[in-house]
C-alpha cells in the first residue's frame, strides 16, 4: 500500500497540474492540502503544504532549490536530474528537513555539498588504490 501510494499521488497531481494553462496561479487544492507548483521548461516542481502555510514563500523556496541545482550542475537540465537523482536528493537534504527550510544562503549550501562530494572522491581514490595494491600483491 505504502509504496504504490507515491505513484498514485504523482498520477493524481499530474492530472491536475499538467492540465493547467500557463497564466493561472501556481496553487491547486488537493485532498485538503495546497500544492504549490512552478514550471521550469518541461519540469514541474511541486510542494504540498498545509492550509496555514505561506504559499508565496513556498514559491521562493522552490526557486531557491532550482537556482542551487542550476549552480551545481551548471545550467541544469532534465537529464541531469534523471541520471543524478541521488545528487539532487543530497542537495535537497541540505535545503529542507521534514519540509522546513534549513539554509537560506546558496553559497553555504554549495560549500557543504562540495565538502561532502570531496569526501566521497577521497574515499573512492583510497578504495581504488587499495584494490590496486591487493591486485598487485595477489598477482
Amino acid at each position: 500500500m505504502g509504496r504504490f501510494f507515491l505513484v498514485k499521488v504523482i498520477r493524481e497531481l499530474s492530472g491536475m497540474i499538467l492540465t493547467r494553462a500557463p497564466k493561472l496561479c501556481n496553487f491547486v487544492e488537493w485532498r485538503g492540502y495546497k500544492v504549490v507548483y512552478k514550471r521550469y521548461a518541461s519540469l514541474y516542481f511541486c510542494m504540498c503544504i498545509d492550509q496555514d502555510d505561506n504559499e508565496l514563500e513556498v514559491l521562493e523556496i522552490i526557486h531557491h532549490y532550482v537556482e542551487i541545482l542550476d549552480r551545481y550542475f551548471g545550467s541544469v537540465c532534465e537529464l541531469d536530474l534523471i541520471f543524478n537523482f541521488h545528487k539532487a536528493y543530497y542537495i535537497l537534504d541540505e535545503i529542507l528537513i521534514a519540509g522546513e527550510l534549513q539554509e537560506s544562503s546558496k553559497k553555504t549550501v554549495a560549500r557543504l555539498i562540495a565538502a561532502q562530494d570531496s569526501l566521497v572522491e577521497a574515499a573512492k581514490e583510497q578504495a581504488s588504490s587499495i584494490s590496486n595494491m591487493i591486485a598487485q600483491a595477489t598477482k
Partner: protein
Amino acid sequence: MNPFSSGTRMRDMIRAIRACKTAAEERAVVRKECAAIRAAISENDQDYSHRNLAKLMFIHMLGYPTHFGQMECLKLIATAGFPEKRIGYLGLMLLLDERQEVLMLVTNSIKQDLNHTNQYIVGLALCALGNLGSAEMARDLAPDVERLLQFRDPNIRKKAALCTIRIIKKVPDLAENFIKPAAVLLKEKHHGVLITGVQLCTDLCRVSDEALEYFKKKSIDGLVKLLRDLTNSPYAPEYDISGITDPFLHVRLLKLLRVLGEGDADASDSMNDLLAQVATKTESNKNAGNAILYECVAAIMSIEDNGGLRVLAVNILGRFLSSRDNNIRYVALNMLMKAMALDSQAVQRHRATILECVKDPDASIRKRALELVYLLVNENNVKQLTKDLVDYLEVSDPEFKGDLSAKICSIVEKFSPEKIWYIDQMLKVLSEAGNYVKDDVWHALIVVITNAPNLHGYTVRSLYKAVQTTTEQETLLRVAVWCVGEYADLLISNAGMLDIEDPITVTEADAVNVVETAIGRDSSDLTTRAMCLIALLKLSSRFPSLSKRINDIIHRHKRSLVLELQQRAIEFNSIIGKHEKIRSALVERMPVLDEATFSGRRAGSVPNAVSTSQGAPPKIPNGVVKPAPPPLVDLLDLSSDDVPTSVSVGGDFLHDLLGVDMSPAPSQGTNQTKKSGTDMLLDLLSIGDPPALSNSAALDILSTSQDSQSAGDLSGKSPTPLLSVKASTSAGSSSMMDLLDGFGATPSVPVTDAPTYPSIVAFESSSLKVTFNFTKDPSSQHTTLIEAQFTNKSPNIYSNFVFQAAVPKFLQLHLDPASSNTLPASGDGSITQTLRISNSQHGKKSLVMRMRINYKVNNKDVLEEGQINTFPRGL
C-alpha cells in the same frame, strides 16, 4: 568479480529503461535488474552494494516494489565509510517510511552516527532522524539531539534544530527540555541557524504552553530588534533575493511574532510599530516582497486589535485583490476569509471584485472566491448575490457547476426571506444545473413546497412551464412530476393564482402528457420512472375521465425488467382497474411534511433506528445468534409471567425474530424456513400436497396456479425474477390480491356491521408509521384480524421492508405476507399486511405484541422496533 552482479552501472540501467518503448519492455528490464540485485544482496556482495542501492532507488521511484532492499540500507548505514552511509541514509529515507518496523533497527546506528567525529556523518544522521523518526526513536535519541543543539559547527546546529521539531511533534512531552536551548539559538548570527531556531521556537509554542509563556516573556523584544535590523540592513549578496535580504528569515520571524502576539495585548503592543513598518516599507513588485507582506497581514489579523494596523492590512489585501498577478489574488481571497471574522464591513466593500473572481478563468481562484462569497451573504444582499450567482451558473464550466449549484442551494436555504423566492431560485438552479444537485437538496425543496399550501398552485404551474422548455435536468423533472401528481387539480383549475402569474391553460390531458413524456424518456432513471408511476396513479384518481389512458401508460411498464417498476405498474394497474373505491383514499393529498424533523434527520444524516414511541423498549443486540428457541425472556419484557413464545408462519419464524439470521420475511428462502414458505403458500392457495419444494419450485407453483386458478385476476402477470427476498414479493402480490379481493367477500373487511374496534397507531417514529385496523373474525370470538399499514414518513424509499412480530404464549399469531417490501417515500403509498391473532385468554388478557421492522434505506440497514400495548380491550 561477482558473477551475479548485473555489472551495469546505474546510468546504463537508466539508459536501458528510458530506451524501452512499451511498459512490458520496461517491466522486463526492471525485473532483470531486480533479480540481479536480489542475488547480490543474498550473496552479501560488498563491492556493488552502493551501486545496487542507487539502482533500487530509481526503480522505486518508477513505482515498483523494492521492499527487499530495505535491509541493504541498514547494512550500508552500518558500514564505516562516508559514501556508503550517505547512500544508505538516502535509501532509508526513500524506501522506508516511519510505519515500517525495520526502522527500529536503525536506531542504534543513528545513535552512533550522532556521536561520530565526522560532522558530515552527524549531519546525515540528523537529516534521517528529522525526516523519518518515529516516536520511539525520538524518545531514544532526544538527549543526543539536545546536545547537538550546542555543537560547535552551525551546520550541525541548524540540522539539530529541525530534527528537534520532529521530536517535539512526535513526543510533545519532551518539549520542555528544549525551551532553553532553543532560546539560545535566537541569539545566533548565522542565518541558517536563525531560521531553523525561529522555526523551532514557533513549533515549541504551538506544542507547549510553557514554551509559549517563556518566549513571550523573554524573547519578544529580541525578535523585534532582529527583524527591524533585518529590514533595515544594507545589501547582502549572500542572502539577497529580489532586493530583500533573506526574505525567508523575514517570513519566519513574522510567523513567530504572530504566534507570540495572538491573544496577548501586551505582546501585540510591542510589535505594532514594527509590523507597521514592514507593511509600509516592503516593496511589492516582486514575489519575495509579497510573501513578506502576506505574512505581515496574517500577523496583523491574528494579534490583538490595533485599529490603524487592521485598516492597513485590509488595504493591502484590497490592493492584492486587484493585482493582475493571479497568485496574489489567490492569497488575498484566502486572507479575506480570515478578515471576515474581524471586520466584515471592510470585506463587504470588496464584494463586487470578489464576485468577479467567482467568474475567473482560474479554477483555484473561483473556488476561493466562491467560499468567500458564501461568507459574505447576509439578509441584505442575499437576493442580489443569488441573482448574480444564478446568472453565472448558466455560463459556468461544467466542472464548476456542481460546486456552484451546491453553494447557491446552501445560500438559498439559509437565508431565504420568503418561501416563494426560495422556490423560484431553486427552480432556476434545477433548470440550469439540476443534474449536479444532490438528492437531499431537492428533497428539502419538496418539504418546503408541502409547507407552503398557498403556493402549491403557483409552484406546480411554474414547474409545468419549466419542464416545457428544459428537458434535460433529471432532478427538475422529478420535482415537477411529483408536484404535478400532487397538485394536478390546481394546475388545471388555475387555483390560487398570484398576482404575478399569467394565466395558463392546462388541460387534464396536458398534465398527463408531462408525466407520460417523463416516463418515456430514454434518459429517465429508475427513481424518476418510479415517481412517474405514482404520479400517474394520483392523476388517475384526480382525473377519473383519463383513467383508461393512464392505465394504458402504466400497463406498458408491467413487463419492465426493473423489479421496482414492474411491481408498481402491476399494483397500480390493479388499483385503477379493480379497486376504485380505495384509490382516492390511497392517493389523497400528502400531509405537510414536517420540516423540523426533516432538517433534524438531515443534520444527523442517519435515519433514526430507535423507536421513540411509547416507552423505551429493551434493546435487542443486533445479530446476536441465539441457537435455542426458548430464550425469549430478553425479547419480551412483558408483565405477563408466561414465558412468551410466538407461533406464526412456520415454526422457525421466531429464529428470524431473534436475529439468528437477519434475513427478512416470513417466507424466506433458507433451508429452515423452506417448509414455512410452503405452508404459507398452501394457506394462500389452498393447494393439495405439494412436493418437497425448493424456493424456486414454490414460485413456479405460485405462478402456474395463479395462471390456472385466478387467471382472470392476474391478467398478464409475468413471472417475477427468482430471488429469495422476492419470494415474498410475488407471494405478496397475490396476497395483496387476496387482501383486496377480500374486501368484497370475506368478513375481514373493515367496513362491516360487526362491532368495530378503533384503529390504533401501533408505532410511530420520525421515519415510519404503523397503523393497525381491527376486525373480529366472525367465526371465532378469540380471533382478530389486523390489517397493518406501514407508511414511510421520510423522503427516501425503503426497500427490503420486513415486519416481524412476537407475542406471548397465550396468543397465537399468524402473519400473512406483506403487500410488498418496498415502501415508497413520503407516504406515496404504503405496505399492508394482515395479521391473525388468536387470544386464548380472550376476555381476561389484552393483546400485546412486540414488533420489529427491518428495511434498507440509501443502502444502509435500519432496524426499528417497538412494543405495542395499546390494543383496544376486548380483542
